[in-house]
């Protein structure tokens, strides 16, 4: 049950130099893959591009074939009220339950704002959020 809310994010290794994001985004465009949300984590000379896309398996294959180093990471997408306190509600639920957030990024869409979370215990997090009346993106949105 909790599993149906665990979403596959693709993570792509990228060197920190001009044109790398364009190369990744261009490849996804050419494959007709839509990006819902993404973030870039940067370190010393390299970075990791994390993206939530409509067809993760296809995106993985497309990028791997082009020579990119790609992996799947389990994340959850929590819908937030797009108004003051929206983020605070979600963060408090997880904080109170002792669930640590490794990283997060968010987008504000047509229906709602969505917070994408990488947490150490994803299934616990799903239970807590649903238990407190929260709403999550279904994995079935992503093929």
């Amino acid at each position, binding site marked *: 049950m909790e599993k149906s809310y665990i979403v596959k*994010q693709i*993570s792509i*290794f*990228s*060197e920190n130099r001009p044109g*790398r994001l364009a190369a990744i985004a261009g490849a996804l465009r050419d494959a007709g893959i839509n990006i819902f949300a993404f973030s870039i*984590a*940067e*370190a*010393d*000379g*390299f*970075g*990791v591009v*994390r993206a939530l896309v409509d067809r993760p398996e296809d995106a993985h294959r497309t990028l791997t074939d082009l*020579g*990119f*180093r*790609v*992996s799947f*990471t389990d994340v959850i997408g929590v819908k937030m009220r797009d108004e003051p306190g929206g983020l605070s509600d979600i963060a408090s639920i997880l904080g109170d339950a002792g669930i640590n957030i*490794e990283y997060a990024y968010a987008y504000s869409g047509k229906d709602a704002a969505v917070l994408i979370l*990488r947490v150490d215990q994803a299934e616990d997090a799903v239970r807590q959020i649903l238990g407190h009346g929260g709403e999550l993106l279904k994995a079935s949105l992503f093929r």
Partner: protein
Amino acid sequence: MAPWNPRTEGMPLDELRRLQFKLVKSLVYRLYSFNDFYRRRMKEQQVHPDDIRTLEDVAKLPFMYKSDLRDGYPDRIFSAEQNELVRYHVSSGTTGKPTVVGYTERDIENWSESLARAFSSCGLGRGDVMQVSYGYGLFTGGLGAHYGAERVGATVLPTSVGNTERQIELMQDLRVTAIACTPSYLLHMGEVAEKMGVSIKNDTDLRMGFLGAEPWSEQMRGRIEDWLGIRAYDIYGTSELSGPMFTECTEQQGIHIWGDLALVEIVDPATGEVLPTGEQGELTVTMLQKEALPMVRYRIGDLTAIEEGVCPCGRTHPRIGRIRGRVDDMLIVRGINVFPSQVEHALLEIPEVGRHFQIVVDRKGALDNMLVRVEVSEEAFSDKITELMVIKKVVEHRLRSSLNVSVDVELVEPGTLPRFEGKSKKVVDRRSL
């Protein structure tokens, strides 16, 4: 395995060294008297044959380089007349002019004797069928292995290179037990055999291979031995020495260099200083009994070390370790000699990164800075920056401890590093000296 020449192969070390000294002494007198090139070199170095009073005094003699052979093209350094020669071999001139090696009857005899000892130390002998898949012709590999195998009483199948399907059919039909070829050609044969529905391990009698003429690694040995079900022995030599001459024995603990035929030294490639046993440096060889083309302190350009102690097989002669690379590739970083092959070797033992790399040397202020670019392996790629940073630190630490110089590591995208061999792309030196 039983020695081919028990008296020589098991000669006590002090006796061997006395023999070497006698051979060096007479070689030097002979060259000083009869060979213009060597006399001129010795005079330039201000050394006279009388100055050679111990074996260690060999270090007083001038070095000889590949360029000397090229400059002496085709036969100006020879110490024999053409009518005394029974054969020529010619090495390919990939960089500049080719070099010609001449052989007297005794040179061919010693070459065959050397390989007979080597092959029998691996158990090759009467009853074996040896497929020689080195090229025959101007290259020394084919004929060298051929004569050595015949000498120990094996039946030789001189297939040379190419026509791999036919080679595999013959290997099966004639019940070949041993092969001499390059390691990459043997891997290729294994693949072609599988496509033909033949497993070299299960469907042939092949039990040993003498592999050389190109660099290979312990990892590659493991793969060949497991996959093909054979023992894979390293074979070493260059055309200047005669050709392939020396191999490991069944202990696989270094290549035995027959001391009555060759005197080996390891020298610092930068200073020419003789290095102690066990230290890695440039292999330098003096051929003690070669007639047509004498070689004294010849700087081969291969990097290796002399193994310490006596081989468990009981043969007393010195052994050299696996060839670790070419001296031409050496870099000096903060005064330390660094070889790309050391980087390659260290990376092979770190599963988190691929085997490809690029070295970039730069100067920051007064200090050299060495950067090694590596690709994160598929298994090790993590979404977490902290884990990637740990990989970077691990590689930096490992490289530092094997090179003795601190190294910055940069993780790069897969497929972006040069794939082919060669210094030109693997090393970028941006220092303006």
